[in-house]
Every structure is written in C-alpha cells, then in structure tokens.
C-alpha cells in the first residue's frame, strides 16, 4: 500500500511569522516540540460566554483545543460553532467531525465553512452509536466512515474538488487528524487501520484514553514496523479519573475505554482518589513521552477541565515553552 502523505523536515517549514496557512498546532508538531491538546466540552447553551469561559481555563497551557461533535452521541453546541467562536479570539482549535449525524453533502459544506471561519485542524471520526447518547431514538446517518471522510476532506484540500468531482474556487487549508483506539480488539488489526487512515490522509492521530501502557507500547512497535511513525504525529489520549467509582462506571458503560485492574486497585487504595487520579495521569504522560513516535498528548479531563493546567505543569512537558494565549483585554475601568 502506498501512502500519499509526505511530511517535510522541520527545516523545510516556513518560519512562524510568514507561515501563511499553517496553524499553530501543525507548526509545533513539525518543529519537533512536544504538543499538548485538550478536549473542550461544548456547553448545553446558546451563550458564547460559556464557550469563552471554558477556553480561558486552557489558554496558555495547550496548543489546541478539541471541540467535540456531539460526543457520546449527546446533544451539545455544534463543534463548528464552538471553533468559530474560539477562532475569533485567536485560539487554535481542532474541530471534530463525526459521521453519525450528517451525510457527505452536509459535511463537505461544513468543512468549507469551517476553513472560511479560520479553523485549521479537523479530526475525522466515525462517532459513537446513537444508542449511547441522550437521543437513542435518532436516525444514525453513517453515510461515510472515518476513512472515507478523511479521503473526501483530503480531496477538498489537495484536489480542490468535492467528492462529486466538482471543483472549488478555493480549497480549505486544513491539517487532518484521525482517531485511533489501540485498546480495543482486534488488536492485531489496529496498526493496519492506522496505516489505512494515513493512506486516506491523516496527518495527526489522537487516541482513546491510554491507561494500559504495555498495550500502547505494543501498538507503537507495530506501527514503527509498518513505517508509520514518520508519516504522522501521534498524540495518545490521557485523562484523570475522578474516583474508583467513576473508573468502574467507565468500564461498564463507555465502549472502547480499557482501564486495567491495577489502575482501579491503585485508585481504590488511595486516601484522596481524585488526587490519585491526577497523579496516575501525570505519570502516564511522563511515561508516554519516552515512547518513540509520541509527538504529544491529548488530555481529556471530563468534568475536571480546571485541573488541566496543573496536569500539564506538573508533568513538565512544556518546559519553558508557553503556548499562545490571547492578549489580556483592556479593562473598561482601570
């Protein structure tokens, strides 16, 4: 199988000031620095202030914020609107697109609109089934899957054409991401599926929560043997578990998240389970960082977003680097 992906060396990249359409996340990754992304929960609200308040927690601590697209098949503010609000303030966002709710006509329109609104990064996902969400009676669309979605968006960008072949007058300059779950069966197929995603256009990968380091190492070894590590940037997913009870609930109810027994045991034995959850997360980040081919981490701190700065800081992954943060606004009354 041939890959259409070519990644220039960091020396070939344009300098930051005239990088043109290259977004900050892509620049950080290409320059070889350890990148941090975090998942931003969309509000159940029509108030933009709620979006800004959530983003404010992460500003200066992460390189990009992922806006989820109806995650867990639950209804929230749309990812394109979230990203547009954040891009207006200068934040770097990763817009997640799921195949569950829209067909190829709607999705391609959204991609063009997103690029027009200044959104640089897209994460192409299949999406959870409707049965896990708050509208299980809804019609699951799944007109595309994550692979064909990647292929179509890469076509918009590189061939300047819709899937139908009709040409665009201006192509969306987007950095294309995909998800991977090394922690769900069939394990031997997972690296090959990663190869397929790269062949379809994926340039960066954010994974499902990693609590099982040996499993992830095995995945990365196989990916290296397939020659994939030079063809994409891999950001394993991490997150703090709030308690042993939460961990047990996730094990029972969240498909695809694998929490090994020893993690559960460690949480149960801790006096302050919440703090222990954060410690486990920080240790995991530090161990992941040592693995060949890991370009950053993706932090999913569901309902613990306020702890993201602390996790990033204590993990020591940014060093002296401080990600972009908006200029403080002039206060109306000095």
């Amino acid at each position, binding site marked *: 199988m041939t890959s259409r992906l070519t990644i220039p060396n960091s020396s070939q990249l344009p300098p930051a000031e005239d990088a043109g359409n290259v977004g900050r996340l892509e620049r950080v990754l290409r320059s070889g620095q350890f990148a941090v992304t975090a998942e931003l929960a969309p509000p159940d609200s029509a108030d933009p202030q709620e979006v800004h308040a959530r983003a404010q927690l992460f500003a200066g601590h992460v390189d990009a914020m992922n806006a989820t697209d109806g995650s867990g098949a639950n209804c929230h503010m749309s990812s394109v609107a979230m990203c547009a609000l954040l891009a207006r303030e200068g934040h770097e966002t990763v817009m997640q697109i799921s195949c569950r709710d829209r067909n*190829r006509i709607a999705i391609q329109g959204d991609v063009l609109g997103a690029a027009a609104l200044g959104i640089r990064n897209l994460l192409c996902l299949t999406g959870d*089934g409707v*049965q896990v969400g708050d509208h299980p009676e809804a019609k699951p669309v799944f*007109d595309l899957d994550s692979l064909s979605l990647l*292929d179509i968006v890469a076509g918009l960008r590189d061939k300047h054409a819709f899937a139908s072949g009709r040409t665009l007058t201006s192509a969306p300059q987007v950095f294309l991401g995909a998800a991977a779950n090394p922690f769900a069966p069939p394990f031997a197929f997972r690296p090959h599926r990663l190869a*397929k995603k790269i062949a379809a256009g994926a340039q960066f990968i954010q994974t499902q929560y990693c609590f099982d380091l040996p499993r992830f190492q095995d995945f990365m070894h196989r990916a290296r043997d397939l020659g994939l590590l030079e063809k994409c940037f891999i950001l394993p997913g991490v997150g703090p578990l709030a308690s042993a009870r939460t961990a047990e609930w996730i094990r029972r109810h969240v498909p695809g998240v694998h929490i090994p027994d020893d993690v559960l045991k460690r949480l149960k034995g801790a006096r302050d389970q919440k703090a222990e959850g954060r410690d486990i997360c920080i240790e995991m980040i530090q161990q992941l960082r040592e693995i060949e081919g890991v370009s950053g981490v993706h932090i999913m701190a569901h309902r613990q977003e306020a702890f993201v700065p602390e996790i990033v800081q204590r993990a020591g992954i940014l060093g002296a680097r401080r990600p972009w943060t908006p200029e403080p606004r002039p206060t109306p009354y000095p």
Partner: protein
Amino acid sequence: MYSIRLWAARHARLLELTYQAVEPVIIKLQPLWKSVGYARAEKPVARLEQACKGLLFDCQMCGQCILSSTGMSCSMNCPKHLRNGPCGGVMQNGNCEVEPDTRCVWVEAWEGSQRMKDSDAIQIVQLPVDHRLQGTSSWLRVARQAAERRESLK
C-alpha cells in the same frame, strides 16, 4: 443467519476459493447477459445473489460487494456500516458496542482475512458507498465491468 455468518468468516479461505471459481463463470456468461439485456437480467440475478449471499453472509445487497476485502464478513452488518475497519467501541470480548450480544463484524473480518490467501485485501481503503446501487446485483456489475475492460483493451 447469525450462526452461518460466523461460519462463513471461519471458512473464509473456502469461500474465497469458491468465489474464485464462480467469478469467471459469471464473466464467461457475458454473451447471455448481453443478449438478455443487463436491465432484464438484473432482477432474477439479484434475487439469486440475495438468496445465496443472504444465507451465507446476511448480505444487505449494497450492490458493491467487498466481501473479498473483509474476510468474508459482510461489513454492511456493522450497525455503523463501516467499510474500512472496526470503530473504537469494540468491547474487550470482541463484541459490538451497539449490539452487545453480537460479535463485531470487523473482529470476524480480521480473523477471516488472515485465513484468506489474499489477506492484504483488508488494507485497501474503501470509498464511500454509492447508495443508488442498493438492491442491485454485484455479480452482474463484475461481469459488466470485466466486459468493458476487455472492450477497452481491444
């Protein structure tokens, strides 16, 4: 039927051989299809195809069969209709997140593909489904495309 579907993936090599024997026959019958007319042949052939593949694979008649690339496990039985591999929600026991009592069709597909001679076919990136072809015969399409290829080579 579910149990026959599982049997089919377990015997993917046998079914691969069977199809390799049947495909040239379908293509050889090209003069027949042409004289009858593809449009008129469509209905009976599609019915026959549905009977065979429905029994063996729970075929959904998407009209663009990729069983040879999916370890003889029909990917249209995936509740998300994924044609390029399993989603991230496969349970640790290898069952489907949407239908927890059913094996993930892609777990079956991977195991089936490893039994086949052309075990790398599962790595082909599949394009999105053409929904206009729903209910039509893949076999006739294969015959027609082979004939068109031959014509273009002449």
